[in-house]
Every structure is written in C-alpha cells, then in structure tokens.
C-alpha cells in the first residue's frame, strides 16, 4: 500500500503514531531531502572511514591481525555499499553522483575521517573511540528510524559496529596490558582522537531539528555525547590513561545529584573546519580517493559498455 499525506501536519501525525515511511510512499519533499542528506552523509562516512583505516593495514603487526582489520574495513565499505543503495533509491541522486560529489569535495562526511592515523595505536583508537561513538549514534537512529529501508540496513550495520566496538576493546586491552612503548603509543593516540571522537556527536541539537521531529534520530546530540563521556572517561582512566582535558572533573551535583563527568567547553571550530573540507587530512584523503576513482574509471566504463541489456 502506498501512503500519501495531505500536508506536513498529517504526515507528523502518521510519524507520531509509529508509522514507517517506505520508498514508494508520497513522502513530503522536506522529509525526502533531509533523510536523503542524512543517509548520504552516513554512506560517505562509512566509505571515508574505510579509507582512513586502510592506511595501516599493510603494516599490521600480524598476519591474523591483517585479516581482522581487512574484514573490519570490508564491513565499513559494505555499509557504504548498502547505504548508497538506500540513498539512491530515494531518487535524489544516483550512487555515481553521490560518489562524484564526495570526491569533488561537494558533500560531507564525519569529522573524524578528516584526521590522519599517525601510528598503529591510532588504528586502535579509531576502533575503540570512534567505532564506539559511531555505534552509539547509529543505535540511536536505529531505535526509532521511521524510514523503512534505512532502518532495515541499520539492523545489520549496528550489529556489525557493535562487533567492531568489542574488537576495539580487545585491541585496547592488549595495549593496556602491554609494554611501555605500547601504552605510550596509545596515550599519544588518545591525545589526538579524544576530542574528535567527542565532537563526532555534533553540537547540541536544534530543539526543532526535523530529524528528531520525524523520528529519524531518537535522541538529541547532547544526550548521546553526554552518555559517551560518562562511559569512556572512567573506562580510560581505569586503564591508566589520561583524558587530554585539564578541566575534566566529576561534578557530584550534576545529573540531578547523581553526578557526572564534565568536560571543558567544547571547541567546535575543528568540527566546522572538517565540514568545509578543511580538516588536518581532508585534502589528502579526498584527493587520493578522487585520483583512485579516476584511475579506475576505465573498468567501470568497460563494464558499462559490455553490459547485457536486461
């Protein structure tokens, strides 16, 4: 059955009543546009995340580890594959157009993938901190998600990201229980990745954020960020690492007297810079991906030229 709505109020009533929107529904253009932009951003982030992690795979300190990180990165590329399909089916842009926009710097992806992994410990920091942040934010989308195809692929993505998060925990424990060199490497990586991971959740949500109103997101950014900080500050401290924030403290009176970790005021300029493709590694990351896409254009052209008509 195809749904249609007479106006946005009618549509909102449907959403508030637990309705799910499917691609063939006559969804409001505002909904189509916002949800498409969100899924495209997610797809781009999965792909660029894979490219961030790939840099250290050739140097993995073990054959089995190389297999594991390949499988993990393959998952991320696979998520991009699924998400581009869901986004393309919304009829706004084709997958090719989305990829071309990404490689031309015309579309966005998560702030954390504008940074370079400097050492192998950064690879672990990404697995531990970034995958956990991504998991929390994607799980919050999956919780209610009113766009049917997105919710269905998120079921698989969230399950796999949960596995990545556990993998990150296991890898971190090895470094934690390891040698001085390993612990120092991870502390340095934590110094580099803590703030970008916290910033990944974004600034406080607009109270009238349409993605919250339409139940694509189930929680505002600040709630997710707060929960993340409460979980990871004590964990990292218990492993003997120092959070790179001189003003970090536990406020006994916060959270209605339950107490909470409070950070310095978050500087959003680095996040804003990444949204303008001005992050520390944005230029290299995008230009390398674009160059590779151009170098392999002949393969796609050959397959198109030799395609058997359906």
């Amino acid at each position, binding site marked *: 059955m195809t749904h249609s709505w007479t106006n946005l109020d009618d549509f909102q009533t449907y959403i508030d009543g637990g309705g799910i929107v499917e691609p063939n529904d006559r969804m409001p253009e505002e909904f189509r546009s916002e949800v498409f932009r969100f899924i495209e951003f997610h797809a781009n982030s999965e*792909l660029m995340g894979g*490219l961030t992690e790939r840099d250290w795979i*050739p140097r993995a*300190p073990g*054959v089995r580890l190389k297999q594991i990180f390949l499988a993990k990165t*393959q998952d991320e590329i*696979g998520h991009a594959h699924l998400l581009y399909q869901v986004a393309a089916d919304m009829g706004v842009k084709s997958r090719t157009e989305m990829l071309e926009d990404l490689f031309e710097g015309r579309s966005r992806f998560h702030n954390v993938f504008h940074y370079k992994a400097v050492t192998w410990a950064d690879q672990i920091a990404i697995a531990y901190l970034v995958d956990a942040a991504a998991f929390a934010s994607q799980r919050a989308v999956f919780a209610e998600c009113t766009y049917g195809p997105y919710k269905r692929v998120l079921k698989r993505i969230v399950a796999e990201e949960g596995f990545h998060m556990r993998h990150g925990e296991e890898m971190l424990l090895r470094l934690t229980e390891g040698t001085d060199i390993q612990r120092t490497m991870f502390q340095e990586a934590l110094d580099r990745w803590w703030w970008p991971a916290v910033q990944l959740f974004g600034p406080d949500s607009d109270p009238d954020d349409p993605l919250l109103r339409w139940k694509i997101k189930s929680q505002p950014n600040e709630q997710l960020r707060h929960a993340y900080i409460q979980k990871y500050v004590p964990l990292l401290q218990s492993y003997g690492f120092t959070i790179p924030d001189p003003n970090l403290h536990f406020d006994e009176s916060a959270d209605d007297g339950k107490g909470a970790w409070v950070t310095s005021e978050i500087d959003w300029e680095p996040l804003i810079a990444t949204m303008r493709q001005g992050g520390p590694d944005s230029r290299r990351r995008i230009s390398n991906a674009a160059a590779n896409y151009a170098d392999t254009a002949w393969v796609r052209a050959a397959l198109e030229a*030799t395609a058997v008509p359906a």
Partner: protein
Amino acid sequence: MIELSEAAKAYLLAFADDEHMIGSRHANWIGLGPFLEEDLAFCSIAQDELGHALALYDMFVPTGEIDRFALLREPADYRSCALAELECPTWDLALVRHWLYDSAEALRWSALVGSEVDDLGALATQALRDEAFHAQHAEMFVERVVGDRAARSRIERALAEVLPVASSVWTPPDGEETAVAEGVVTRSSASLAMVWADQIRTQLDGLGLAVDPQLAQGLDELPPASTRHHRINQFDRFHTSLGEVISLDPSAIW
C-alpha cells in the same frame, strides 16, 4: 605442529610465502577497488589467501612465532616468487596477476589433496573450494572487460608486463624432488606448469588477446630453484611496511 622433513618444510615455506605475499598485495586494494562490489569481492579473496598462508605456516612454525616469522625475516630468507611479490599498482596489472596466479594456485592445491602429510590434504581440499571462486572471479572479470576495446588494450599491455614473470610461480621450491618422493606433493612444479601454461594459452587464444608469441610459449619454462632466494626490486619497500609496527617492540603482543 607436526613433524615434517626438511623437504616438506621447504616446499610448504615457498607456498606459504607466496600466499602471504599475494594476500598482502591484494589487501592493498581495500577501499581502492574500481567499484564498491569489486572492492568487497577482492578483499574477500585477499583474506582467503592470508588464511591459506596462516594455515601453511602453522604446519611448520611453532605456535606464537608465526607473526615474527612471517613479517620479520630478512628478505633473502623469504621464498616467495616474483609473480606474488609484484606491486601491481594499477587495476589492470592487479587483475592480470590475479588471473595468472589464482589459476596456478588452484593447480598447486590440487597436487596437495593426496599429500601424505597429516592434515595437508584436508587443507588443500578446503582451499580448492576457495580457489574455484577466485579463478571464476578472475576469468569472468577479464572476459567481461576485454569486450571493450580500450580495456582490451590495457589488459594486453598489462599482460606484456606480467607474463615475463608469470612462470616464476612454478619455480620449484628447494628439495622439491625429495618432497615428491616423500609424498608431500603428488606432482612436480614442472608438470603442473605444463597444464597451467596450456590452460592460459587456450584462454588467451579464446579471448583473442594479442600477446608476444614468445611470452606465451615460454609460460612453462621454469626459472631455476635459486630464484626463490632472491627478491624483486619492489620487495624492499613492501618488506619495510610488513615489519614496521611489529619491529617497534619485539617483546610486545599486538
């Protein structure tokens, strides 16, 4: 780890190093495949090859020492072939190498199915199932792209570059004659090379690919065993990357 003769160890070392090198070279394409579906497929092949390498190393390297053995030997101590070591930085080269190597690999595993070494036959049977997909993937991909004139030219140029070292995959491991006599492997590299060369020549003809006739004829001419003791020029940078992290702290567990 099982008790193996020196000839058996030498035979398995050459194959394991080939699988390790090809798996690592294929792995370098993660995120860079020509389209997303191919990225996923080629990455799976890379993981399979690394899995084969691990299973082979596990037969003669003590438990807990495989990573240091695989990543930290001196270049002269590796026994991989030039075909597996090639960098192949463009997709046409990577595809041609994938086609030539995987068709040879399937034959190599088939000669181990009847091995008298404990567990090796079972491993070969399992690996052959993987290789059926790998070979099918490579052959279908080549067959499809050469239907396009521009792509055909690229593949022919890639063949001109890769074919001169293709038969290196059949360089006999040290002591191969003894390994055959002991029943480690049921066929020599020379006899497998003849089957492989006929197969490749038939495929080249079938696809109408223009290659230097001398290169095609020379596919079953085996390099001497000593060439497995020498690395190609592109190996040094690759070797440095293999050991970059693990050598930071030899006492560490990563």
